[in-house]
C-alpha cells in the first residue's frame, strides 16, 4: 500500500516536472519568436530612417544640379526626379512611429516640395520659361534641404544610426525635424513655397465662390431647410453645427421611418448636403431606359430647386438609389467644376439626397471665352486609333486651381471607354479619363 502511494507520488513529481520544463521551453520559444519579430519590425523602422537620411541628402544634391542646369530638358529631368524622390521620403517617414507634431509638418513640406517641382516641370513642358522667382524659390529650397540634410546626418551620427532618434518621446526628433516651436520650423527649416498647384496653400485653403456674403441665423436656415424639403419631412430639429471648410447649420427630421439630415451654409443659406439614411437598398444597375427616366427625375428636381439646366454625367447605383452626377450648363458648355450629385430612390422615384459642395465651391458668374481652335483641329490631335463617338465643349477644373475650356471627345480604344480633353485655345491634350464600368455603376479615373 505504502509502495503504491510512494510510486504515485513519484509519478506526480515527474508529471509536474515535465509540465514545468515544457512551460519553460514554450516560454523560451515564444520569447525568441517575439524578439525576432521585434527585430524585424525595428529593422523596417531602421531602414526607413536610413532611407530618409540618404534621400534628403540626394534631394539636396539634385537641387544643386537644378541650380547648375541651364536647359529645359535638364530642368524637367531633375524636377521630375525630385518629385519621385519626395514620394519615397513620404513613404519612409509615414512608416516610422513618430509623433504627429513631427510627422505632419515634415510630410506636408516634402509633399509640397514634390508638388511644386512637378508643377514647375509641367509649366516648362507647356513652353513656359523658368522665371527669376522660380529660380529664387529653388535656391531657398536648396538651402532648406541642405540644412535639413546636415541636421539629419548629425542626428544619425549622434544616435549611431538608431531610428529611435526620431521616436515619439525624443526631444531631438522635434528639434531635428520641426524645431522647438511651430514658428521656428516654418521660419527656419521649412520655407513657404508659393505656387499654383496641388497641395499648395492656396489650394488647401480655397474659399467657396458660390455662397455670397449674407450671414444666416439658425432660424433663417431652418426656414430654408424646411422650404427645400417640403412637407415630406417632418419634425425638423437643429443638430450639432458643422464648423468645417464650409460652416453649416445642421437639421435633422424624419421622412417616414428614415432619418433625414440637411446642411445649410451659415453664409449664403444654401443647401450643402441633404441625405436620407435608409435601412435597406439593393445595389444593381437598372435598364438603360429606366436610367434615362431617373436622369430626367434628377434634372427636373434640381431645376425646381433653382439650379441651372444640367446635363447628366455618370452614375452609381447602390442602396436602392441612383447617385447621378449632373453637370450644369452655360451656353450648352458643360461646367464640370460645378458638378452636383443627386440621389434618386429607384423604387419611389423621389430625390432623397443632394451634394452641392463642388457647385458652391466653384460656381460663379463666368464669362466663358470662345474656342479659338475648331473641332476638326482638336480632333486632329486625338490618337487616330481611337473611335470617337461624341464631342462636346466643356470647362474642366485642373489641380492648378484654374479652369480650361476643352473639347471633350468620348471615344473607345477597343473595348475601353475613355474621355480625351483637348484644350480649345492651345490645342493641347489637357486630360484623359478612363471610364470604368463596375457592379455599382460607372466611374471615371
Amino acid at each position, binding site marked *: 500500500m505504502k509502495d503504491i502511494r510512494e510510486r504515485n507520488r513519484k509519478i506526480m513529481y515527474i508529471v509536474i516536472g515535465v509540465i514545468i520544463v515544457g512551460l519553460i521551453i514554450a516560454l523560451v520559444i515564444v520569447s525568441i519568436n517575439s524578439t525576432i519579430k521585434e527585430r524585424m519590425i525595428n529593422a523596417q523602422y531602421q531602414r526607413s530612417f536610413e532611407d530618409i537620411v540618404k534621400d534628403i541628402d540626394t534631394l539636396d544634391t539634385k537641387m544643386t544640379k537644378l541650380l547648375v542646369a541651364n536647359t529645359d530638358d535638364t530642368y524637367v529631368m531633375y524636377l521630375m526626379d525630385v518629385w519621385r524622390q519626395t514620394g519615397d521620403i513620404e513613404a519612409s517617414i509615414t512608416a516610422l512611429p513618430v509623433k504627429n507634431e513631427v510627422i505632419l509638418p515634415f510630410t506636408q513640406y516634402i509633399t509640397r516640395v514634390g508638388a511644386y517641382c512637378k508643377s514647375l516641370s509641367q509649366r516648362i513642358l507647356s513652353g513656359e520659361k523658368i522665371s527669376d522667382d522660380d529660380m529664387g524659390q529653388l535656391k531657398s529650397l536648396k538651402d532648406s534641404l541642405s540644412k535639413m540634410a546636415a541636421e539629419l546626418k548629425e542626428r544619425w551620427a549622434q544616435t549611431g544610426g538608431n531610428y529611435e532618434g526620431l521616436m515619439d518621446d525624443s526631444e531631438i526628433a522635434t528639434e531635428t525635424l520641426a524645431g522647438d516651436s511651430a514658428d521656428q520650423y516654418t521660419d527656419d527649416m521649412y520655407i513657404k513655397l508659393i505656387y499654383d498647384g496641388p497641395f499648395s496653400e492656396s489650394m488647401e485653403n480655397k474659399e467657396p465662390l458660390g455662397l455670397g456674403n449674407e450671414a444666416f441665423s439658425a432660424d433663417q436656415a431652418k426656414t430654408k431647410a424646411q422650404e427645400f424639403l417640403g412637407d415630406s419631412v417632418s419634425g425638423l430639429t437643429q443638430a450639432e453645427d458643422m464648423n468645417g471648410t464650409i460652416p453649416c447649420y445642421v437639421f435633422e427630421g424624419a421622412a417616414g421611418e428614415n432619418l433625414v439630415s440637411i446642411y445649410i451654409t451659415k453664409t449664403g443659406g444654401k443647401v450643402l*448636403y441633404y441625405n436620407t439614411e435608409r435601412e435597406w*437598398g439593393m445595389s444593381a444597375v437598372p435598364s438603360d431606359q429606366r436610367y434615362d427616366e431617373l436622369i430626367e427625375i434628377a434634372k427636373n428636381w434640381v431645376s425646381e430647386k433653382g439650379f441651372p439646366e444640367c446635363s447628366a454625367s455618370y452614375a452609381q447605383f447602390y442602396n436602392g438609389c441612383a447617385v447621378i452626377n449632373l453637370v450644369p450648363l452655360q451656353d450648352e458648355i458643360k461646367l464640370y467644376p460645378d458638378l452636383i450629385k443627386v440621389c434618386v430612390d429607384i423604387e419611389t422615384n423621389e430625390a432623397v439626397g443632394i451634394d452641392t459642395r463642388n457647385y458652391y465651391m466653384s460656381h460663379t458668374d463666368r464669362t466663358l471665352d470662345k474656342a479659338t481652335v475648331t473641332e476638326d483641329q482638336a480632333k486632329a490631335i486625338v490618337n487616330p486609333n481611337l473611335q470617337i463617338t461624341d464631342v462636346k465643349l466643356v470647362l474642366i477644373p485642373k489641380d492648378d486651381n484654374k479652369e480650361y475650356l476643352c473639347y471633350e471627345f468620348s471615344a473607345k480604344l477597343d473595348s475601353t471607354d475613355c474621355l480625351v480633353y483637348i484644350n480649345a485655345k492651345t490645342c493641347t491634350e489637357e486630360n484623359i479619363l478612363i471610364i470604368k464600368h463596375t457592379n455599382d455603376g460607372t466611374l471615371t479615373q
Partner: protein
Amino acid sequence: MKKRRITKYMLLALILAIIFVISACSVAAVSYSYGSSGQKVKEIQTRLKSWGFYNGSIDGVFGSATSAAVKWFQRNNGITADGVVGSVTAEKLGIALGSSSSSSASGSTSDVYLLARVIYGEARGEPYKGQVAIAAVVLNRVESSSFPNTIAKVVYQNGAFSIVADGQINLTPDDTAIRAAKDAMNGYDPTGGALFYYNPKKTTNAYMLAKPVTLVIGEHNFCR
C-alpha cells in the same frame, strides 16, 4: 430477430427520406425559376419592375416574361444570364433567400471595402453619420499634403488608427459600414474637412485637444 432487422431498415429508410426532404426543401429555398410562384416571386417582380427590366403584372407567377426580365437584369449586372434567381442574383436584387447574407468583399472595390473595415472597426454602433464621418476623415487625409496619398497608406500609417494594432481592422464589415463607405467615397463629408478625431473621454494628447473641433458625433470629436 427478423423483426428487429425490419425495424432497422425502416429506420434507415426514414432517415434517408428526412435527408431527401430537407435537401429538396433547401434547394427550393435557394432558387426561384420558371414555374415558381408566391410572395418571393412578387418581390422579385417588384424589384425588376422598379429597375426597368419587367413590364408585366406583379402576380407572383414566375412565367416567361419574368424569366426574360431576370435574364436581362443578370446580363446588365454582370451575372450569368440563366433566368434563375439563385443566391447571387437574389443578393443583387436585395432579396433574402431564407438564410441571411453577410457582406462580402466581392461587390465592392478594394478601396470601399478597406474603408468599410475602418468604419466597422472604429465606429460600429455609432450613429450612421458618425460612421460616414470616419471614412470622410480617411479620404480627407488622402487629399491632404500632411498625409500619404492613398487610402491604404493612410489607414496603415504607423500609429494612425488603433484598430490596426488591435486587429479590429480585420473584422468583416456589415452592410451599414459598406453603405457609409460608399456614401463617403461619393463625396458626403459630415465633418467639413476634418483630418482627425478622438474620443474626448479617452484622450489626454494636448496636440489633439488644442485643435479646433469641427463636429461632435456620438463618442467622437472631429477636428482639422
